[in-house]
């Protein structure tokens, strides 16, 4: 059997392991083994690729292969070191931007590989076929957009780029760049195979990636990362086609299609079409709204002290906790879990209401609460729990804002209008844990905070919850 057939067989096994791994990632019981299975598939795919490298069964390079092989080993070791070190040291709150970075470098690699494939073909004097003139710029374009876009998404989640960046004629500029890329692409397919237009296309794609993500508000970053993840997958699949590598085609395509589905699911959860997320310059509308309507600012909020709040909690029958990004920032998950333990000892039923886009990524809250050993049968999806708020004596909002903003239902001018929310306002009493009166990530006021049955407990979420636990302990 030839080396190529052996490699193809190994790739087949790797592909099956990827699919099994993704399947097992779909259930909490088997998820961890699923990730491990996919990793084994990756190891197998990398191993099977070694004999396919130039110089193993084919002619070596004129100057010898040693240097290039050594560089491959160095590259893998350096990448593994950076990857493992950052994956281990990152805080749980910074998970979304970590995924963005890992996605971005994958996209960058895809663009680099496509560029080298093109240059090698062009320089080798071999004819770049029409099909390659189509697929190679595709990888370079999508991979570069994913790379640059992911870096901006990282900057936004990390807080380097605070507000959505908007400027006049933004859409026109993006359109112009896209048109230039399209023109270069057509030029490459139909008229020339020279490297210069390819390099230009590569550079313009990087610019496009930056400009595409800059105007998008931080609250929409999860959708952007999911989309860019799918982009990278597609770029890798196209690279696989260019190099005739089945493992890359299957691996890339699996990510491309599942990532697209995930993006759609996330947009559906926010009840907004993807075009709205990508092109509406979320923050601009929000800023206009804030300066235009002063209804929130005139009213006063009702503060509450920790001992008052703890009494309300202690004599409740059902308490629903709504965690949000504030919980992640304050790293209050362990204190929250302690609070629910204390309440349960008193016979209070505690449930957690998880909004699909709470935090910065879907499932962000689940991960944090799981870290604090909150059993996941206490976590309820929005649809499962929204009818229970009427029964709840107290709803405790821990650092959540936009996901409980009634404006999403009532104010057609609001940028989050149409997004389903957790109906905290239905419960008998709402206690909001908040650092101060700053608006949420979407930059809009929240009517709920001014509601008659809402009391505000100001302070760092972790301190506030710890104080509540202290007060409750004293009551025994």
């Amino acid at each position, binding site marked *: 059997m030839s080396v190529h057939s052996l490699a193809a067989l190994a790739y087949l096994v790797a592909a099956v392991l990827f699919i099994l791994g993704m399947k097992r990632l779909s259930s909490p019981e088997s*998820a961890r083994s699923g990730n491990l299975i996919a990793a084994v598939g990756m190891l197998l795919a990398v191993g099977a690729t070694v004999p396919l490298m*130039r110089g193993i069964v084919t002619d070596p390079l004129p100057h010898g292969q040693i240097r290039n092989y050594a560089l491959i080993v160095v590259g893998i070791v350096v990448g593994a070191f*950076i990857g493992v070190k950052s994956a281990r040291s990152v805080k749980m709150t910074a998970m979304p931007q970590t995924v963005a970075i890992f996605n971005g470098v994958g996209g960058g690699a895809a663009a680099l590989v496509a560029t080298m494939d093109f240059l090698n073909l062009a*320089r080798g004097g071999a004819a770049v076929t029409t099909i390659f003139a189509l697929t190679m710029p595709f990888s370079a374009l999508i991979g570069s957009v994913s790379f640059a876009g992911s870096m901006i998404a990282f900057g936004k989640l990390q807080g380097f780029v605070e507000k959505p960046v908007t400027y006049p004629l933004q859409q026109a500029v993006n359109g112009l760049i896209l048109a230039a890329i399209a023109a270069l692409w057509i030029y490459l397919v139909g008229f020339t195979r020279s490297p210069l237009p390819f390099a230009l296309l590569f550079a313009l794609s990087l610019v496009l990636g930056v400009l595409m993500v800059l105007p998008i508000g931080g609250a929409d970053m999860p959708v952007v990362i999911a989309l860019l993840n799918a982009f990278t997958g597609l770029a890798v699949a196209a690279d696989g086609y260019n190099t005739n590598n089945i493992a890359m085609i299957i691996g890339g395509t699996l990510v491309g299609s599942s990532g697209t589905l995930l993006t759609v699911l996330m947009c559906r959860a926010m009840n907004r079409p993807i075009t709205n997320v990508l092109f509406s310059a979320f923050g601009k509308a929000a800023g206009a709204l804030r300066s235009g309507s002063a209804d929130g600012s005139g009213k006063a909020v009702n503060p509450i002290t920790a001992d008052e709040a703890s009494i309300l909690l202690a004599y409740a029958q059902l308490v629903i906790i709504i965690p949000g990004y504030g919980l992640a920032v304050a790293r209050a998950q362990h204190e929250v879990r302690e609070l629910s333990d204390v309440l349960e000892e008193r016979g209070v039923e505690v449930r957690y209401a998880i909004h699909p886009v709470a935090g910065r*990524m879907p499932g962000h809250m689940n991960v944090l609460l799981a870290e604090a050993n909150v059993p996941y049968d206490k976590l309820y999806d929005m649809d499962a729990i929204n009818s229970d708020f009427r029964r709840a004596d107290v709803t405790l909002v821990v650092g959540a804002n936009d996901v409980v903003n009634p404006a999403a239902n009532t104010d057609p001018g609001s940028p989050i209008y149409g997004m389903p929310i957790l109906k905290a306002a239905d419960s008998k009493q709402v206690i909001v844990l908040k650092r101060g009166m700053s608006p949420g990530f979407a930059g809009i006021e929240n009517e709920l905070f001014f509601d008659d049955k809402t009391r505000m407990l100001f302070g760092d979420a972790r301190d506030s919850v710890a104080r509540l636990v202290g007060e409750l302990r004293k009551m025994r």
Partner: protein
Amino acid sequence: MGGVIGVGLALLYIFIMAIFVGFEVISKVPVILHTPLMSGTNAIHGIILLGGMLVLASATSPLGIVFGLLAVIFGSINVFGGFVVTDRMLQMFKRRKP
């Protein structure tokens, strides 16, 4: 397969089938696992490392070596970082001991 259909067409078949598998395999994922799943699939597209290895192995020009080495490093970060960070997330899904 060469005699029946061309390699390009066979690759197209693989591509289309993989699209459906990708959709199907995650369609029943609960919201609780969305982040780990995104992170796990993110690691899988680190398979671009293969492309980086192949490109760097045959690179002759300085530009080719720089691009190839960058591609290998990037791909390697994607693979190792992706799987490790996903594992870290999933470690937290242990059931609470009674």
